[in-house]
């Protein structure tokens, strides 16, 4: 039986137990919009609209590749990682807490307009799951696998398919940092041959498969396929819970921007990584959950006004994902806007004198339309 306890920093856990979950109202006037509750499992509606802190060591362990670029820059400037607790995330966490893991995995699709916080909601859920001790399979952006690929090799396993060694090895490296202890404990159930001479025996820890993929970059995509297959087969036993978190799932169905050497277009099924990921996102396994995000910003050949699942997934994708739980993510509510504005003021991000006045605040609210990304972009130069 695997250890369900908190996988991360024991020091962080001790620090938490000493600070109780009361909110900061009674303490220093530091912030009505901050909360000292750093464990996503304990977030309730009371914490809605508030920002919670993730210790920097946890950020490096849990999110080697998941966070958006602007958020990473913000973490570096402010020296802390603060995530806002919002309603869609709370709904998802409630669903996850109440789900029955003997049933097939439930699929959740987070959708919304551009810049409303879908990726951040996904990161919140990933943080919760890693705190609870789940095995997190986080693909930061599936669109990166269907465009801008420098090397496409013909797969040795199946003649029709194409391999992507660079993307696969980058993903394996990040997967290794985030799930160290699981790789040691999960054993393979079959013998795998890598080319003519190398093979991994049955019963070896998964870590060897990952290291094989990293050492021999040519077989990295096959290593990824093996990892996904093993995790799917072993998750129903109940020794660990599996979370499949895919950002930009609409890349798996649709078109790619890649082409073969004879300039003919490549369809997503012909890529090994996409093929294996599609199998992972099917709900024919139990013992975990699948949380995905739709994304128009990285998508190919889709109009910029499309944001609903029907438009972005297309017929094929919608049928494949069919029984799913849709979770819309709206723009900031007035309370969330106040909270975000107050946080920027407190961290001295809004330096302009007029930004501290009521007029400046009203202008920011109007210009951004309460959209989180627009607010962040506007507050940059101010």
């Amino acid at each position: 039986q695997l250890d369900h306890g908190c996988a991360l920093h024991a020091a962080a856990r001790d620090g938490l137990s000493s600070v109780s979950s009361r909110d900061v109202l009674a303490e220093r006037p530091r912030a009505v919009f901050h909360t000292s509750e750093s464990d996503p499992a304990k977030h309730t509606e009371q914490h809605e609209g508030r920002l919670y802190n993730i210790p920097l060591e946890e950020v490096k362990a849990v999110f080697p590749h998941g966070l958006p670029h602007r958020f990473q820059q913000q973490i570096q400037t402010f020296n802390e990682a603060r995530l806002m607790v919002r309603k869609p995330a709370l709904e998802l966490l409630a669903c996850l807490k109440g789900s029955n893991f003997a049933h097939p995995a439930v699929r959740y699709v987070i959708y919304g307009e551009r810049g409303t916080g879908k990726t951040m909601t996904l990161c919140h859920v990933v943080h919760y799951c890693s705190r609870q001790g789940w095995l997190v399979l986080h693909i930061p952006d599936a669109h990166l696998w269907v465009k801008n690929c420098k090397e496409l090799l013909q797969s040795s396993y199946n003649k029709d398919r194409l391999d992507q060694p660079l993307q696969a090895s980058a993903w394996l490296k990040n997967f290794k940092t985030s799930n160290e202890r699981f790789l040691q404990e999960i054993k393979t159930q079959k013998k795998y041959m890598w080319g003519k001479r190398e093979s991994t025996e049955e019963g070896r820890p998964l870590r060897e498969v990952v290291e094989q993929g990293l050492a021999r970059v040519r077989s990295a995509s096959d290593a990824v396929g093996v990892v996904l297959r093993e995790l799917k087969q072993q998750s129903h036993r109940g020794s660990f819970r599996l979370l499949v978190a895919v950002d930009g799932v609409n890349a798996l169905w649709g078109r790619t921007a890649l082409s073969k050497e004879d300039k003919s277009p490549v369809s997503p099924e012909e890529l090994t990584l996409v093929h294996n990921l599609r199998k992972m996102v099917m709900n024919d396994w139990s013992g975990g959950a699948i949380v995905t995000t739709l994304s128009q910003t990285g998508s190919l050949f889709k109009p910029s006004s499309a944001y609903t699942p029907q438009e972005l997934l297309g017929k094929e994708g919608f049928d494949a994902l069919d029984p799913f739980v849709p979770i819309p993510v709206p723009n900031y509510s007035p309370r969330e806007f106040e909270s975000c504005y107050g946080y920027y003021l407190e961290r001295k991000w809004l330096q302009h004198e007029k930004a501290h006045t009521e007029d400046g605040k009203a202008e920011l609210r109007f210009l951004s339309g309460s959209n989180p990304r627009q607010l962040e972009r506007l507050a940059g130069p101010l």
Partner: protein
Amino acid sequence: RIMPVRWSRYNPNYLEPEPKKEPYQKPLEERTEEEREQMDLKTVRPIKAAPPTMSSSVFNDPLISKFTNMMMKSGNKVLARSLMSQTLEAIKRKQLEKYHKAPENEKETIECNPYVIFHQALKNCQPIIGLSNITKGGKTYQVPIPLTDNRKRFLAMKWLITECRENKHRRTMMPEKLSQELLLAFNNEGPVIKKKHVLHKMAEANRAYAHFRWW
């Protein structure tokens, strides 16, 4: 205000637009005679179209707009404005990182407001005295002359932009280079300040010809 009489095609009836909302929000009692007359005139006379640079935003800064216009190439204001906002953000990030890492007693000395840094840097770059070519007896001399405020501002901005465009590595982005130069100018270091000092030295060297100036 100086009205462009010769070149504007507007009927002299037309009044200038007013972007700020304070004059309109003042109650009637507080207005002086002229303001009351002005308001009455506005109800009857037509108003000119506002130029695109005029903005009613509280964050609008005329110096920043002028600098953005000077950075603009072939009318691409969108690009110039985005470069300007990225520069301000880069300055802010660098200063905030320094601020958060500094010990308590030094925190007040670090200036984080990018607008304050920009204004101060430009002021530090402005030359006090300039040179002009005056031809006397067949020879041209470099004569030191006083500069107007507009000319000083223009020279400072021009030097900053040319310096950033020419003396940078092929792969560095303009916002990064500009933020570097602005921070150096804020501390009175850097190539632009050196250029200003060179100009001052030339003017000092040519003091003898100062009497050639007739205005």
